[in-house]
C-alpha cells in the first residue's frame, strides 16, 4: 500500500518534470515550427541563474522561480532578434543555427564558470509516505508544473495576448492587416519559450548537478515528447508527458533509471511511428 503510494507519487513527479522540461520547446515548435536545439542550454542558463543568484544571497525561491525565466527570456529575445529571425521558413538552417547557439552557450558558460558541477541547496526537507521518506521538493515540482501548464492555457485561451499569439501563428498576413506586427509576436513567442525553459532549469537545479553540459540530457527527451504530443501545445505536452513520464518511472522503478530513460525514448519513437501527428494530432484536435 505504501509502495503504491510511493510509486504514484514518483510517477506524478516524473510527469511534472517531463512536462516542465518540454513546455518551452513545445511553445516554440508548436507556434513557430522552429526546432530549437539550444533548448537544453536555455535550461542550463536557468540553472546557472539560480546557482549564481542563490550564492549571491538572493532568496532561494526568487533565485529558482523568478530570476531564471526573466534572464533566459531576455537571452531568448536577443537571440531571436540577432540570429533566428533571419532563418524563418528554413527549418534545416534553424536547426543548425540553434545547434551552433547551443555549442556557443556551453562554451560561454564553461569560459565563465569552468567545467565543474555546481549545486543549489535543497530548500525543503522530506516527508513520509507510510514507511518511505520522500523529498518534499517533489511537491514543489508537481506544483510548479501544474501552475505553469494551467497559466499558459489561461494565457493562450483567455487573454488578448494569447489570442494575438495564436492568430498570428495561424495567419500572419491577416494579423498584420489587423494592426499586429508579426515580428513582435515571433519575438515574444520565442522569448516565452526560452523563459519557460529557463524556469524548468531553475526549478530542477536542486535535484540535478549544474554543469555546462547538463542540457544535453534533456534535449532528446523534450523533443520526443513534443513530437509525441502533437500540434496542441499544452494538451499535447500534458498527455505525452503523462504517458512517457509514467513509462519512465515504472520502468526505472523495475530496473534502473538509465533503462527507464531508454524506455521513455524507445516508446516515444514507437508512438511517433504509430501516430505520426502525435497524440493530439489524432485526438483532441481542436484544443491548444
Amino acid at each position, binding site marked *: 500500500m505504501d509502495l503504491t503510494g510511493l510509486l504514484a507519487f514518483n510517477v506524478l513527479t516524473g510527469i511534472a518534470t517531463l512536462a516542465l522540461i518540454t513546455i518551452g520547446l513545445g511553445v516554440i515548435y508548436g507556434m513557430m515550427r522552429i526546432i530549437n536545439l539550444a533548448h537544453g542550454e536555455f535550461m542550463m542558463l536557468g540553472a546557472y541563474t539560480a546557482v549564481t543568484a542563490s550564492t549571491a544571497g538572493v532568496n532561494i525561491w526568487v533565485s529558482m522561480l523568478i530570476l531564471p525565466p526573466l534572464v533566459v527570456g531576455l537571452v531568448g529575445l536577443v537571440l531571436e532578434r540577432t*540570429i533566428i529571425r533571419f*532563418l524563418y521558413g*528554413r527549418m534545416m*538552417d534553424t536547426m*543548425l543555427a540553434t545547434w*551552433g547557439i547551443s555549442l*556557443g552557450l556551453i562554451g560561454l558558460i*564553461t569560459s565563465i564558470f569552468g567545467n565543474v558541477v555546481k549545486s543549489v541547496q535543497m530548500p525543503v526537507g522530506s516527508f513520509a509516505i507510510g514507511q518511505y521518506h520522500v523529498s518534499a521538493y517533489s511537491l514543489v515540482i508537481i506544483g510548479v508544473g501544474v501552475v505553469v501548464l494551467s497559466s499558459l492555457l489561461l494565457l493562450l485561451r483567455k487573454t488578448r495576448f494569447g489570442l494575438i499569439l495564436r492568430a498570428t501563428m495561424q495567419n500572419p498576413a491577416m494579423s498584420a492587416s489587423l494592426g499586429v506586427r508579426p515580428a513582435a509576436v515571433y519575438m515574444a513567442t520565442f522569448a516565452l519559450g526560452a523563459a519557460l525553459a529557463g524556469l524548468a532549469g531553475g526549478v530542477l537545479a536542486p535535484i540535478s548537478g549544474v554543469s*555546462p553540459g547538463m542540457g544535453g540530457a534533456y534535449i532528446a527527451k523534450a523533443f520526443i515528447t513534443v513530437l509525441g504530443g502533437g500540434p496542441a501545445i499544452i494538451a499535447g505536452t500534458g498527455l505525452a508527458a503523462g504517458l512517457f513520464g509514467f513509462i519512465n518511472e515504472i520502468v526505472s522503478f523495475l530496473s534502473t533509471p538509465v533503462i527507464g530513460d531508454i524506455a521513455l525514448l524507445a516508446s516515444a519513437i514507437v508512438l*511517433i511511428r504509430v501516430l505520426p501527428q502525435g497524440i493530439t494530432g489524432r485526438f483532441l484536435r481542436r484544443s491548444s
Partner: protein
Amino acid sequence: MKLLRSSGGAQTVVILSIIVMFAVPKVLSEFGVMQATLFAAVAIFGLSQGFVWGYAGIMSFGQAAFLGIGAYTYAIAAINLGNTQMAALLAIAVPMLFAALLGYFMFYGRISDAYVGVITLTVSVILFELMNSTSGSQYHIGDAVLGGFNGIPAIPPFAPPGKPDEPLDQIGVWYVAMSTLIVAYGFLKWTLASRFGRVVVAIRENETRAMLIGYDPRLYKLLSFVIGAGIAGAAGAVFATWGGFISPTVFALTMSAQVIISVLIGGLGTLIGPILGAVAIQYLINVAGTQHTIDPSLGLGIVLVAFVLLVPQGVVPVVRSWIARLSSTSRTPRAKTAKTPNASEQESRS
C-alpha cells in the same frame, strides 16, 4: 546539378588522394601520420553523412550511432575472434543491419523528414546512455568487457590478410585508412552515376514525381540509409584501430554535430565537400583544444552560426560557382540547395 559532368573531377580526386597517401609518410613525422589517419577517419565519416543527407535527402541527425556501432563491433569482434579482417567486415555489416531495421521502421512508416532527424538523434542518445551504463565486469560480450563510460581499451590493431600476427604499425594503419577513404569515395561516385544513384537523387529532388514514375521512394531511401551506415561503420573501424580504444563518446551528440557541421561547411550535395569539411573541422577542433584563448565549443558554435547565416550552401559549391563564373562557359548554378525544404518536399510530407 548535372551528375555526369563530375566524373572527370572524380578521377582527379582519386589520383590526388593516392599521391597524398604515399606522400604523407615520407613528409610527416610519425605523430603527423597519426594525425593524418584521424583526418582520414573523420573524412570517411563525413562521406557517410554527405551521401545520406546531401544526395539522398535523409536528415540523419544521429549518424554517430552507426559510427559507434561500427567501432564497438570492430572492438568486440577483434577481441573475441582474433581475426581483425573479419572484425572489419563485421564493423561494416552490423551497422548496415541496424540501419536496415531502423530504416524500415522509419521510411515505411511515412514519417516526415524532420521526424527522421529527431528519431535518429534519439537513437544515438539511447545508444550513448546504454553503453555508458555498462560499467562493471558483468557487462561483456564474449571476452570483450564493455566498460561503461570507460570504454574498451587495448583493441587489437588491424592486421593485413595473410599475416594475422603482424599487426600494422602507424604507417600501415595510415595506408589502410586512406585506402578505405579512396575506396569509399570511389564506391559512392560509382553508385551516384548508376541508375540507382540517379533515382536516389531524383527522389530527393521531387519524391512525388519519382513515385509517379513508378519508383518506390521508401525502398531507395532505405537502401541509401543502409549504404551510409556501412560507410560510417567503416569509419568506426578505422577510428577504433587508430586509437586502440573506444568509449561511449563516439555516440555522443557532439559527434553527430561535428559531422553535420563538416558537411554543411564543406558543401551539401558534393562528395569532396564533406571530406574537406571534415578535415577542416577536425583540424579546428584540434587547434581549439590546444589553445586557451577561446573555449572550443564557443568557437565551434560561432563558426556554425556564421556559416548558416553567411554561407548556407557551404564552401565547395561557392568556390565551384566562382570558378564557373571565371571560366568562359556559362554554367547555370544550381537552382536550389538540397537542405532548405522546397515546396515539393513539403507536399510529400503532408
